């Protein structure tokens, strides 16, 4: 069990909110998607360690009742599900939110039960830890890539294909000139992908145990 796979961390946080107040959260979710609310998203988008972040509110009536034989539950609260994948450690992520966009965070979680506000940090840490659901299985197709790497690779790949279409038959001198211009254009997107630095000794220990066991099993 680990929340970490390659360069990524998967976080799930489920927090209760009084059902009759969740319209406030929803109002804010709607607002940030309007042009006037973009300022709140700008901070989030500039935090380049984030792959994605998603909030979803499930009201008591929306919880699945799959079969008449399933016992009826009494659900007192609406629940806000927060999912995010990111690069780096838990603390790096939570602390980045807390320092970079504390105001936005307080609006996202606005009236949720016992939400302590994002500043100061220690009560906020305690709130996230208490409500976090740990990940048992986390698959990462590109363990060497961070979200910045993927964005850079996409940018580079597009430019390189377009370059090929136009210049593949240039004479050497023209090609060199065009190639240099391409390098200059994409200089911010060229990088080296290697394994992640070890951000957690506990996760490293799990990884080593599992890879040892799988070697033993396949032998």
């Amino acid at each position, binding site marked *: 069990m680990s929340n970490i796979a390659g360069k990524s961390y998967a976080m799930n946080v489920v927090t209760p909110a009084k059902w009759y107040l969740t319209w406030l959260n929803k109002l804010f979710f709607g607002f940030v998607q309007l042009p006037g609310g973009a300022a709140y998203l700008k901070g989030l988008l500039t935090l380049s360690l984030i792959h994605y972040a998603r909030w979803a509110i499930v009201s008591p009536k929306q919880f699945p009742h799959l079969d008449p034989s399933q016992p009826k539950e009494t659900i007192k609260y609406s629940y806000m599900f927060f999912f995010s994948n990111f690069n780096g450690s838990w603390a790096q992520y939570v602390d980045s939110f807390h320092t970079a*966009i504390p105001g936005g965070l307080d609006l996202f979680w606005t009236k949720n039960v016992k939400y302590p506000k994002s500043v100061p940090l220690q009560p906020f840490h305690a709130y996230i830890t208490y409500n976090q659901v740990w990940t048992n299985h986390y698959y990462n197709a590109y363990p060497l890539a961070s979200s910045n790497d993927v964005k850079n690779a996409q940018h580079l790949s597009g430019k390189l294909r377009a370059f090929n279409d136009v210049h593949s038959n240039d004479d050497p001198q023209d090609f060199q000139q065009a*190639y240099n211009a391409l390098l200059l254009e994409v200089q911010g997107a060229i990088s080296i992908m290697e394994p992640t630095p070890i951000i957690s000794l506990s996760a490293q220990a799990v990884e080593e145990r599992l890879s040892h066991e799988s070697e033993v099993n396949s032998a």
Partner: protein
Amino acid sequence: MSTHIDLNDIQGNIVKGYGHFGYPKARYIFYRIKECKAGRQFVQDINPLITTGVAWEMTAQSGENSAPTATTNISFTYQGLKMLGVSRLSLQSFPEDFAMGMKERKDILGDDQTSSPQHWDQIWQGEAVHIWISINGKSEDVVEKRYQAICDILANTNQGVEQVLGHTGDQGETNLPYQSASVIYKNGKPQATEHFGYRDGISDPYFSAASGNPDRVIGGGKPTRGNPATKEGWEPLENGEFILGHRDEAFETPKAPQPPLLAFNGTFMVYRKLHENVGSFNKYMNEEGKKLEGGKELLAAKFSGRWRDSGAPLTQFPTEEEAKAFGDKLSAAEKKLYMEQPNPSAPTVAAYTKLRQQLVAFNYDHDLDGSRCPMGAHVRRINPRGALEDGKTAFNTPGALVNRRRILRRGLPYGEVKDESSNDGNHGIIFMVINASISRQFEFVQQQWINYGNDFKLANEKDPLLGNHNCQADGGGKMILPNDPKGDKPPHFCAGIPRFVETRGGDYFFVPSLTALHMLAEGIVDPT
């Protein structure tokens, strides 16, 4: 909340980089406690020698300078606190990083290959050391005198405390009783540089309790959205980033060991002996420098973010000519200031201060593409000065991702370079860090900003100077030096960068307040 701090209760190395205060010579001595009572006696007897954070001019009577000829400070590893009889309840309230010690954190720190603990000095090979003591002095003689005084105190413990030998020395010794350090002298004159030739120790964080010139907030504090060349561009960092028991940048008192009085006014210290591969550095600069338009000095500046001689920031002084003109003015002003000691005239001080400020009073807003100072350059990595906001007004404050990662750097160069074309020998930097949280501050910087590049959108690119580049034959680090996007020159690619800096030892220490030192000596630490 008050930003007042009782400097009488704080150890002096927290607020003073002694090297900058006219103490160019140092020794670092390590001890193991064999017997608890003797250990407490040793701490008790050392106490009167401990240098506090009090500003020296403040205690001066009738104009006399109160600065001591030698300073002494003390700190403890986790095992050291345990040997002093600190209870388990209290020990378990210390953070994991400190409890584990540096050797066990090697995977976090990237101390692998030639930096791995098996290559460290002998002193780090056995069980952990317990006590670190530093002596800084104005001359070797006063350091020796203070050292002898401490040896006498040690002798009184009747082997209940032992000095740990095992430092590697300049003549190939492997069992020296202490680590010496000193500023580098050239033709008998002290230099502000380290062994690669970079002017060092230019920028240190400025926090509310920092003694010294309040103008140092410029470039040393946390960035505001004001002009970085003026005081409006900066605010002091909160004391709690560097001293426990005070408000930090998260608007709370940092997590600290129990009882509160043990932690209050204390902090954590990292001690690292870093060997500098001068031969590899010079060879790489000479060879790769030939391929770069601008040559070797520009390459050295692109790696560091500052020009070697003057320390002029590359982002403000992009050409060697500009840097040289600035450097000449700065050294003339320094010389004038020196000549007029001890009572320099106001215009001399003002002229020097104005130039000195240019070394630090800047940010990277006009250089977001890194075509002047690369994003991956050493100084831009370890102190991005708000550049992680990408030039947008996106965060609550431009220092959002930086203000909690600042570290106070202490220490001095050690050893002598006898052959500039060789890596062999014993020379480098005794690098010390003061911070309230080793994992949040020092380890984060070391791991994410020195040995990795994602925060700068540089994937796995490492700090060219300090990064743990792969030492295998086909290895080496890489770095892209961006060029002006409006120009016509492609970026320059550096490959095969050797590991220039290797770890040769170190550990994590707790630096108690003077009050806490008395509590430890008396054996009265009780968290219940």
